[in-house]
């Protein structure tokens, strides 16, 4: 059944494609064991966020959203993967996660459940303020936010946790390009700065953990548990 909120044009079709692939990349972050592949998936997810911003910018003839797309590409698709690889040592990036809290099929099922939940949560909001591409970007962005939070809780390696965190921010901004397209550019720049600081600080902390504890398996960090 065609959704009445979505008018079918080429730009919209392309945005739908970007949204679908964005969600796929988010699922990939839940399921991928190789740390290096996780970094690549995050870069891909950021490119898709930028693509959606550019497409919405094309539709609304807004230079502002083009700028957002450019900032996203530079900060998230290029600088963050580079920073993470530079700060966290080779040994960390080349790791494979052996044990997971949940096995991959269960994790993917839960992620699927979260996506459906996001659609239900987003539906009344769309009805409250129907406009343009919100119907696509809001539920997908919210789903990525929830799945990112889920990724952080189930991953047991340091870097995949950080990437889950960063994909939460990507999810918020994926919704953001549709619901807050004219957010002041200064705020967008500052937000990009913020995620760069996250990558830098967490990368350095990962390296220190690796040096000190000899492992970046966050599951081994149980010294501070209270009895």
């Amino acid at each position, binding site marked *: 059944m065609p959704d009445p909120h979505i008018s079918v044009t080429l730009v919209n079709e392309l945005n739908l494609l970007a949204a679908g692939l964005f969600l796929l990349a988010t699922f990939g972050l839940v399921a991928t064991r190789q740390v290096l592949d996780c970094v690549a998936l995050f870069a891909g997810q950021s490119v898709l966020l930028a693509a959606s911003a550019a497409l919405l910018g094309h539709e609304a003839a807004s230079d502002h959203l083009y700028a957002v797309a450019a900032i996203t590409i530079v900060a998230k698709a290029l600088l963050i993967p580079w920073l993470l690889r530079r700060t966290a040592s080779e040994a960390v990036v080349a790791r494979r996660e052996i044990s997971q809290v949940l096995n991959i099929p269960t994790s993917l099922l839960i992620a699927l459940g979260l996506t459906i939940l996001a659609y239900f949560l987003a539906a*009344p*909001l769309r009805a*409250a*303020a129907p406009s343009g591409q919100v119907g696509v970007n809001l539920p997908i*962005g*919210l789903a990525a*936010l929830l799945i*990112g*939070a889920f990724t*952080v809780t189930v991953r047991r390696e*340091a870097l995949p*946790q*950080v990437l889950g*965190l960063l994909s*939460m*921010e990507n*999810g*918020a*901004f994926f*919704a*953001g390009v549709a*619901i*807050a397209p*004219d*957010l*002041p550019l*200064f*705020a967008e720049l*500052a*937000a990009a*700065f*913020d995620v760069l*600081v*996250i990558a830098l*600080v*967490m990368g*350095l*902390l990962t390296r*220190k*953990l690796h040096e*000190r*504890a000899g492992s970046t398996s*966050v599951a081994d*960090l149980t*010294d*501070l548990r*209270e009895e």
Partner: protein
Amino acid sequence: MVLWFILTLPLIAAALALWASRHRTVPGGVTVLATALQLLLALAVAARCASGAMVTALPGWVSCDAFGALVLALCAFAGFTAALFSIGFTRRATQPMEAGRVRRYFVRFNLFLVPVLAVPLLSNVALVWIAVALTTLLSIFLVSFDQSTAALEAAWKYAILTSMGAALALFGVLVLYWAMRQGGAEDFTWSGLAAAAGAMPPLLVKTAFLFMLVGYGTKAALVPFHSWLPDVYSQAPVPICALLSVVETTTLPYVIVRLLPLFPGKAGDGAGRWLLAFGLLSAVGAALLLVQVKDLKRLFAYSTIENAGIILTAAGLGGAAGYGSVYQLMNHALAKPFGFFAAGAALLFAGTTEIAAVQGLGRRSPLAGAALLAGALAVTGAPPFALFLSELSILQGGAVDHRFLPVALLTLCMVGAFCAVLYHVTRMVFGRASATGPLPAFPRSYALALFVAFVPVVLLGVSLPASVEHLLRLAAMALAR
């Protein structure tokens, strides 16, 4: 202009501390001077705001009203006392050869102060979110100063959990922007939003509020998102605990409570109920957890959670208790650094923060023992300390509005927390001295920090000057709805 000075001073101090790489004493000295100057400037701003004026540096971006000035002055005061204490702390915690570690500590200390002081000064809600997120990121390496595995673990938990909260709050901020645009407004500032409150779709505002409450609530360590806080406080250096504790109980309630004017009329009750629920859960939960504590710094950590809960409960009650909320916010921010400094002095003489291992601290060092006892009384709201008056004012305010159930619960957890903290602390202070060996000298910077932190807690417990009361009344208007 004065607001720009406040924001650039820590940056200058950080640069100077970095530049003076060879000298061990320069970074600390510069930091104390800069924080003292910040405090004076912040008090000047507060004095101007107490007369009802707005201090504006850049309209729509950087400005300060009474509520902002209160938070600014409290954070600046905590920064100053923590800087004083840090001098003695870094001298004791590092080897003579480790000038680099001391320098890095003070550079990070100053950089951390920038977003802390920026939160009350920024008026654009999106920028406030960024400042809050940066307060976490720039304090991570201060928490892990000790470099032990446990300290790194605490820093990791802190970073991951509060950044998750920040991402949820970001979604809330974006939805709030959407709501504002749907309401036809353009001005994404606290005052602009309050002016547009009636026109915004209520469902969107409520969704934004809940995401921001949970997101910022994680950083404020509200139960059930509190698990990181005791771990962090048990590992972080004492002056950092003092500063973090003030930041978490002033700036975070500030950004949450600032959303209340967005709910005009009946809708305000709904938002108030959410604050009440989270506030009471935190106050009661922390009071219960206080009983089983085994570590002195964790004791003060749970007391911080309890106070954050009391502040939000009072804000949620609204009406007459609203004034008590900002009053409590001020008094807790003044009392808690003193509590942590006293814990630091106790650690110095007892050699450990494990409660069961320490006895007779008062015998070994009467000053440290007296300070710890006074600190315990001050943070739990015993007379003659200031927190007693504000807790009383909240209970009275709630009772006047016939909100008897929350008032009864609050009273129970205030009394419970008082008994639990005193039970643990008296065991440490009295009795035969457990530690032996040569007595360390009481560091002058510890004594000075204790004294400076002690004075306002006692003075405000005796009487509240008219100008301060006026500032509090004006600040409380920010949460009227």
